[in-house]
């Protein structure tokens, strides 16, 4: 049997009643087998024999890790002996005991009448003492008073030192009470402990029982006990204690000495009953619930555990598991808030039962932290036809790829719709990625997408995260930047992103349908920044470019003399590359439905009769109309809010 680790010399209160016993025990513990062997301690029950033996054992073990220590009660010893005899292993039993460096036997008084055990014990003592091993015995009476014991054993037991422990005196009692209440973390008013100590308990255990009662009482209403309350609280107990050391049972019926039970004693009895009957496992679970609730965690699993009527076999494991889940949640939460501080408010981080959800949140946050969309690989620089109308822009783009972030930052490309700005931007972004090592992020988004993401982030309160995404990239390419006009918040955010990236030397490229100075509703701080780099224009494809483009598109379809067709088609002015594709598609589809192969004559017939006038007149007309309307003085740019205007008119 193991000695109780709580039994130590430093928490054994020494008084005049036990000083000799403690000194002897210490001497034995410090040099086992050489001073008093055997040491025989006797006292009436509850005065610290077992504590003292535990203290010897712990000290010996502390001084020598290898020391073999055995603490047994006589009953254990007898049982082991019987088992060994029954198994025919009494020799091994003896050998086992002879290897023990310190043998402590408690309750030796039960040797009475056990002849066999006595003779075995005698042999064992002889052998152990012969080999210098320490023996400590404890009993409730001195060896000579243990009746019906072999004379030889008595002399053997008495051969070392016999010490007794008497009932503690007042000072020792007070010291014990103080130590015990300190241990429990309870503070009594001055005088209370002394008052309790004045009661002549002959037994430390009973003294402790009375102290427990005071402690229970003090926790009742929160009021600190007064010294004069001690007698009230303990009721008729002290008299009983004084009357007999055995302790009288409290009177249960009316008419018992001490008068009828009053409310206070009733209360104290109920307190004791509650303390006894409240299920400790439930208390622990409830404490855990209170604790974790206080920490802000949902405790559904524990609440259900509490509803069990019987003690669940693994409730401690459940508690530990819960704590582990909370730890995991905490880790997830800090991971999530690292990405976006607003995520910490997510309820899933407060409920271990929603761990999976919390993990999903983190997962989402992590994926949200993945960079903004990059360029489409379908648009390549190699597939980009250069002509007079776009060469400036393309050269600028090439220069940007050569020295990203240095030469033209930002690069601002503008030109009418369909001239290949988007293609150029994606191609440029792809080249940038390649130029920067291939493993970097260059965002390539439309202004509309940029704005939509921002709005979604505002909606989800994850703007921080959104910003971080754009600040971690190596280059930013935004198409159709004209859409941010009049969008104050987007411009504001764009301004910050611009500054952050620009100051970090990251390349910025923008495309718009008009130059920055014509972007109405664009804040000046942005406008000036756009203009601070290089602004290049892309014009409608010139004839040479048109011809090359037609030739390229026609190459993929079967036709007679594609070069001639391309040359004819290129004569027709178009405003955009898209229009070129549209024309090719139109003639090809028309030839297909007519069931004739595509030829120059067919193309001419298809496009000339109706096509010429519209295609030639329209741009002229458009230009005139535009010129008429694009006049600040003739156009109301900012309509006032409709409601107020109506009200004004009704007045």
């Amino acid at each position: 049997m193991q000695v109780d680790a709580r039994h130590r010399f430093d928490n054994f209160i020494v008084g005049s009643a036990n000083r000799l016993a403690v000194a002897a025990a210490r001497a034995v513990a410090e040099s086992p087998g050489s001073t008093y062997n055997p040491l025989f301690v006797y006292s009436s029950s509850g005065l610290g024999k077992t504590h003292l033996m535990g203290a010897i054992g712990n000290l010996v073990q502390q001084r020598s890790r290898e020391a073999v220590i055995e603490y047994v009660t006589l009953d254990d010893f007898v049982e082991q002996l019987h088992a060994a005899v029954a198994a025919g292993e009494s020799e091994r039993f003896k050998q086992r005991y002879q290897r023990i460096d310190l043998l402590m036997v408690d309750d030796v008084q039960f040797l009475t009448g056990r002849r066999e055990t006595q003779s075995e014990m005698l042999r064992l003592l002889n052998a152990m003492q012969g080999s210098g091993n320490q023996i400590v015995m404890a009993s409730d009476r001195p060896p000579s008073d243990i009746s019906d014991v072999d004379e030889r054993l008595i002399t053997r037991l008495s051969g070392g030192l016999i010490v007794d422990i008497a009932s503690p005196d007042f000072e020792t009692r007070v010291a014990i009470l103080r130590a015990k209440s300190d241990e429990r973390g309870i503070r009594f008013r001055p005088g209370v402990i002394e008052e309790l100590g004045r009661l002549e308990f002959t037994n430390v255990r009973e003294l402790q029982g009375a102290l427990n009662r005071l402690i229970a009482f003090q926790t009742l209403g929160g009021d600190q006990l007064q010294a004069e309350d001690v007698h009230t609280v303990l009721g008729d107990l002290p008299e009983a204690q004084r009357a007999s050391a055995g302790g009288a049972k409290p009177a249960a019926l009316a008419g018992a000495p001490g008068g009828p039970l009053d409310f206070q004693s009733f209360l104290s009895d109920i307190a004791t009953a509650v303390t006894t009957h409240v299920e400790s496992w439930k208390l622990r679970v409830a404490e855990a619930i209170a604790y974790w609730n206080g920490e802000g965690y949902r405790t559904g699993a524990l609440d259900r555990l509490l509803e069990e009527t019987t003690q669940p076999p693994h409730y401690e494991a459940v508690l530990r598991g819960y704590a582990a889940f909370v730890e995991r949640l905490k880790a997830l939460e800090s991971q999530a808030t690292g990405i976006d501080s607003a995520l910490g408010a997510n309820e899933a981080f407060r409920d271990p039962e929603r761990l999976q959800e919390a993990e999903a949140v983190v997962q989402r946050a992590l994926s949200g932290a993945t960079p903004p969309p990059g360029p489409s690989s379908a648009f390549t620089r190699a597939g980009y036809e250069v002509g007079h109308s776009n060469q400036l822009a393309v050269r600028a783009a090439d220069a940007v790829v050569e020295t990203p972030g240095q030469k033209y930052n930002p690069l601002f490309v503008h030109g009418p719709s369909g001239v290949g700005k988007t293609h150029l931007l994606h191609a440029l972004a792809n080249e940038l990625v390649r130029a920067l090592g291939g493993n970097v992020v260059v965002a390539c988004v439309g202004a509309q997408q940029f704005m939509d993401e921002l709005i979604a982030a505002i909606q989800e309160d994850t703007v921080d995260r959104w910003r971080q995404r754009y600040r971690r990239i190596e280059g930013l390419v935004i198409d159709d930047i004209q859409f941010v006009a009049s969008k104050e918040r987007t411009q504001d955010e764009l301004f910050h992103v611009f500054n952050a990236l620009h100051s970090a030397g990251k390349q910025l490229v923008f495309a718009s349908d008009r130059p920055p100075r014509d972007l109405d509703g664009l804040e000046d701080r942005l406008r000036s920044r756009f203009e601070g780099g290089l602004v290049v224009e892309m014009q409608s494809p010139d004839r040479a470019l048109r011809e090359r483009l037609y030739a390229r598109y026609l190459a993929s379809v079967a036709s007679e003399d594609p070069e001639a067709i391309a040359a004819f088609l290129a004569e027709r002015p178009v405003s955009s590359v898209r229009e070129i594709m549209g024309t090719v598609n139109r003639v090809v589809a028309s030839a297909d439905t007519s069931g004739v192969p595509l030829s120059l004559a067919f193309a001419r017939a298809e496009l000339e009769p109706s096509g010429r006038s519209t295609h030639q007149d329209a741009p002229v007309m458009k230009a005139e109309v535009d010129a008429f309307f694009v006049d600040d003085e003739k156009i109301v740019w900012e309509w006032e809010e409709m409601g107020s205007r109506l009200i004004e008119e009704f007045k």
Partner: protein
Amino acid sequence: MSLVNYATREITCKIVYYGPGRSGKTTNLHYIYGQVPEDRKGKMVSLATQTDRTLFFDFLPLDLGSISGFTTKFQLYTVPGQVYYQTTRKLVLQGADGVVFVADSQARQLDENIESFQDLHANLADQGVDARAIPLVIQYNKQDLPKDLILGEPELRDAINFRGVPDFSADALHGPGVFETLRGISELVLKRLSTPGAK
């Protein structure tokens, strides 16, 4: 009713004083009420007739404060003893955690005691409560009356306490035995807390 709520740390016990008319159930409650310190006193509700007979029931909430961290409240009820208040008795008995049977020790009341005790069993059975399982103590009240008028504890025990539950002699008017009885039933009730399968 949940007896112990570990989550809110509350213990609530409903204890019903049962017994024949005029056996002293209300007197028990009055004595307890008189002993409770002011700050722990709830309001005692007594619905009594002019002649001081309990018409419906008495109700005494007892706030015992915090015990081992549990807010502990006892609710003491009495039932009207008169035979014709059967419905009220059943009503009050509902959800009781423990029952104190207050017997009148007067010799001439013996039949009433037995009848009421049987009535208690019948009512409990009606509510699906096993009379052998519910905490029950018996109080032999009015033991202060002249010896020739009353039966002694042994006779009463023989006549009523055939189940051998804890029993107490009492003089509810003056106090002896009142708190002993209450303590007796309380301990039985609280003991059920740790009994597996208790409600």
